[in-house]
């Protein structure tokens, strides 16, 4: 009977044995580790130092800090977090603060409750991690984190001594395994409510994706990322390579430096006149923290739970913070707003005064020499083709006046430069124009069942309005680099450019492997991450469970079944385990048989053991000891699990070395 040892000294003498405490520190460190990449370096160092200090208190008897320095430290860390993030309430700052306070809590861990607070904080750190990543490794992190923290919970609850950490870990693994069926049922059947319930804090960390304005170098920066922007499953054949224009935000106002979205974005979407068959597809969009969605040019109808903007950009109601799956239909052959009122047309001609004088001059000559808008466009494209323009991810700095610099000095740029400059030229030449950003391209997965569009496919192009024809897409980049549309980024810039590996045309085993993994990711995205209110309704609707009351009923039935199963698993008595001594002796028999010595039918363990001892003189003592221990356990009823375990270990350790006498036993020829 071990009475709980309580020492009354004022230090943090805790109820936790040092080993349990070390396990706690390690588990918390492992759970917090993925956050470390986002924490300021000094905070990571401080948290580590506090953890090591705590370990030193437990193992080396170091003094714990008294109350007021601890308070000072608390204030200092909070101030440091506030200074580093500029706030204490955002997601990143909140995680940083929770980590810091958890580390401080280590130093004032006196009672069991304090330990519990730390373990609960650990669970909380696990869930905050999912606001940053939800890829498959994050799911493994989930399982490992819950397992480790639950093992700690067990160790802390075991008041009668924490001397067997692995038993606790095994029990925790059983608990997690028994929790899994309920998890799956709840995940599938628990009725989902569309969020958010309250305002979401703004993301402070940058998410890759298109920006809400087009400054000259923006897209070339984005194109260096090989990250997946979205994946698409087509209902029929995908459109041919040169037609994969994915429409995103449209920019109509130019301020002399960058292109900006229209001031009024609330208007109704004009209805295009479409011809030919529609392309139907489903997009799985990676979160990019913006409201726009992407659709093949030209989307004809609003996305589910969203609408089409006045410039036919599909928009979601909320910024896309989680993987989003939506169905769309697009018409590659369309006619958009063939009649545009003069007042609206003027809006698409507006330019800031005095910007880019040489470009204006050039545009004015085009306007004078051309009969109509279409001729101006042709002239403009011919100009880009003829004058040695270069398509590059790393253009030289065009100077203060970027359009003039691009057109007359450097003659090198990326799609963002050419689209921005071309739209300016068109407006200066009297042709209404706007810039469209999005993606151009997309590669089919090796299995051919879906298309991957990457950030490196980011693109910008121009739409001009021509009388009688409406808005027409013009891609000035293809005038400079005809290969861009069909062969993508990797096929259209020179070999030394910083093109991400996945966007390069050549095949490599690494690329192939990454693409195979992507298929796994896609399945994960499709069935787990995109499983929200919409998908739940659709999926369960197939079984007639789409409505709320039925869903709840199905949930109740499934929970009862699974709960009953787990209950039986836990409570039903299993068959008594085989006698440990007998099992050990059987193992010995197997070992001897492998070494060539078999027990004769009817031969008792005493005789057989003696014979084995004679056959292996090198292990004589061991064999006799094993035999005697077995006989004691088996026939004299010697009690104690320890004795049986010793026997088992002894058999496990036994190494039988062949000796000359073995052959003489007569059984040796049967070996092998």
């Amino acid at each position: 009977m071990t009475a709980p040892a309580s020492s009354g000294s004022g230090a943090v003498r805790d109820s936790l044995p040092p080993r349990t405490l070390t396990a706690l520190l390690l588990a918390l460190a492992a759970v917090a580790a993925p956050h470390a990449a986002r924490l300021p370096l000094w905070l990571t160092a401080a948290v580590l130092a506090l953890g090591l200090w705590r370990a030193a208190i437990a193992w080396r008897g170091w003094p714990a800090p008294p109350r007021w320095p601890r308070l000072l430290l608390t204030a200092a860390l909070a101030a440091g977090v506030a200074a580093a993030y500029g706030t204490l309430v955002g997601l990143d700052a909140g995680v940083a603060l929770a980590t810091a306070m958890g580390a401080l809590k280590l130093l004032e861990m006196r009672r069991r409750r304090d330990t519990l607070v730390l373990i609960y904080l650990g669970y909380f750190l696990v869930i905050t991690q999912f606001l940053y990543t939800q890829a498959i490794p994050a799911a493994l992190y989930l399982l490992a984190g819950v397992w480790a923290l639950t093992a700690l919970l067990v160790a802390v609850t075991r008041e009668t001594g924490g001397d067997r950490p692995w038993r606790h870990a095994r029990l925790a693994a059983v608990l997690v395994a028994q929790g899994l069926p309920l998890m799956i049922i709840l995940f599938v059947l628990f009725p989902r409510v569309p969020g958010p319930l309250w305002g979401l804090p703004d993301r402070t960390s940058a998410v890759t994706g298109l920006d809400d304005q087009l400054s000259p170098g923006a897209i070339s920066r984005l194109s260096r990322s090989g990250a997946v922007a979205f994946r698409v499953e087509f209902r029929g054949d995908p459109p041919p390579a040169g037609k994969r224009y994915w429409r995103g935000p449209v920019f109509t106002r130019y301020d002399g430096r960058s292109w900006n979205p229209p001031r009024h974005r609330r208007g109704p979407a004009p209805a295009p006149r479409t011809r030919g068959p529609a392309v139907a597809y489903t997009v799985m969009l990676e979160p990019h923290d913006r409201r726009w969605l992407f659709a093949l040019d030209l989307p004809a109808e609003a996305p589910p739970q969203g609408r089409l903007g006045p410039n036919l950009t599909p928009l979601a109601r909320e910024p896309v913070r989680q993987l989003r799956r939506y169905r769309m239909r697009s018409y590659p052959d369309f006619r958009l707003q063939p009649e545009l009122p003069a007042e609206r047309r003027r809006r698409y001609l507006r330019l800031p005064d005095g910007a880019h004088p040489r470009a204006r001059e050039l545009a004015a000559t085009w306007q004078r020499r051309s009969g109509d808008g279409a001729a101006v466009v042709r002239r403009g494209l011919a100009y880009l083709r003829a004058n040695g323009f270069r398509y590059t991810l790393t253009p030289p700095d065009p100077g203060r006046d970027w359009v003039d610099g691009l057109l007359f000095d450097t003659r090198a740029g990326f799609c963002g430069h050419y689209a921005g400059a071309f739209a300016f030229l068109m407006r200066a030449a009297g042709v209404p124009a706007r810039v469209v950003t999005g993606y151009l391209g997309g590669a089919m997965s090796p299995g051919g069942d879906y298309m991957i569009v990457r950030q490196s496919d980011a693109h910008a192009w121009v739409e001009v309005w021509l009388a009688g024809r409406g808005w027409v897409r013009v891609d000035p980049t293809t005038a400079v680099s005809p290969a861009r549309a069909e062969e993508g980024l990797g096929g259209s810039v020179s070999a030394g450019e910083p093109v991400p590996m996945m966007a390069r045309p050549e095949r490599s085993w690494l690329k192939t492997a990454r693409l195979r993994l992507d298929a796994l990711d896609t399945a994960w995205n499709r069935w787990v991450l995109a499983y929200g209110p919409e998908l739940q309704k659709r999926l369960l609707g197939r079984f007639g469970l789409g409505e709320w009351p039925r869903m709840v009923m199905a949930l109740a039935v499934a929970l009862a079944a699974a709960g009953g199963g787990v209950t039986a698993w836990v409570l039903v008595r299993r068959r008594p385990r085989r006698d440990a001594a007998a099992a050990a002796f059987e193992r010995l028999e197997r070992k001897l048989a492998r070494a060539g010595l078999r027990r004769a039918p009817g031969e008792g363990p005493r005789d057989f053991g003696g014979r084995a001892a004679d056959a292996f003189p090198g292990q004589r003592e061991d064999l006799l000891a094993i035999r005697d221990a077995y006989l004691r356990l088996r026939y004299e009823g010697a009690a104690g699990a320890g004795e049986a375990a010793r026997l088992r270990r002894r058999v496990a350790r036994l190494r039988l070395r062949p000796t000359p006498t073995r052959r003489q036993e007569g059984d040796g020829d049967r070996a092998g």
Partner: protein
Amino acid sequence: MRTEARGVSGGERAATGAAGRLRGPRAALDRWIRRRMGRQGRTVRLDYPRIYILPSRAGVGFGALVAVMGLGSVNYGNSLGFLLTFLLVGVAFAAMLHTFRNLAGLEVAGAGCDPVFAGGVARFRARLGDRSGRDRWALAPARAGGAGPPADVPGGGSGLLTLEVPAPSRGWLRPGRFALATAFPTGLFRAWSWLDPDWACLVYPRPESGAVPGPEAFIASERGGRFGEGDEDFRGLRRYQAGDPPRHLAWRLLARGQELHTKQFAGRAPSRVWLDWAALAGMDAEARIARLTRWVLDAERAGRIYGLRLPDTEIPPDQGPGHRHRCLEALALLPA
């Protein structure tokens, strides 16, 4: 948990009947518990219907944590957040079953209790075992005003439980209703079973404290002579005989490897004394008992030979632990 001690506050010899007269929800709960418990013998088997389980305070905190996680997951539409939340629900459910199983099927058998003096703490021992061969960890008795350290029962083996119960007054002490509880493995749930087994512990009377006049002030010893001073002058050694007072043993000789001897003192051998109830006429009964108890202890400590005369009993003079126990038992069980 508070309710359980209601009817069985320590002083009562028998714990039945008291609660029946009380009113109010607590008393009703108490009656309900009593009905469910039934009559218990010396060995109690904790079958399923005897076991109660509720979330502990830590479990309520855990529930709050899971609820917050669930709300966060809805808010952010975060699938892995949902997975974690639901996994924790599943783990808590499994933990509840394990906690229940940690207690279910256990057999609790009384294993005695050493007598204590009134005012002390009685330590009831109980042997825990079962036939399932399962490990059971961290089982602890819980009782208002008393408890005990947690005990383990390794699979197929048995464990020893100690229940500490305050013993306020002399006589037979029953442990009264107590709970055998466990929160293992996770501490999120607490399972318990109420026990009121038929165990008893002898409680000796509380000895009178302070300076007490010796028995010779009231009655002369049979041999006469002064008491308490006779063992000053060393006279010699004789062989040890069972019952010799330990302080008179010749430890030094023993340490040198010789046989055990007892020192003999002048003023003559242990004098005989009768500790007599009747001699204390004029004092109230409990005070007499306290005085006699003190005398028994003093006489035993001094290595004297003493007898005890009580109204209905007479214990002839003797000495030694067995004799001391007989005397104290007789005093403990005197009718009030």
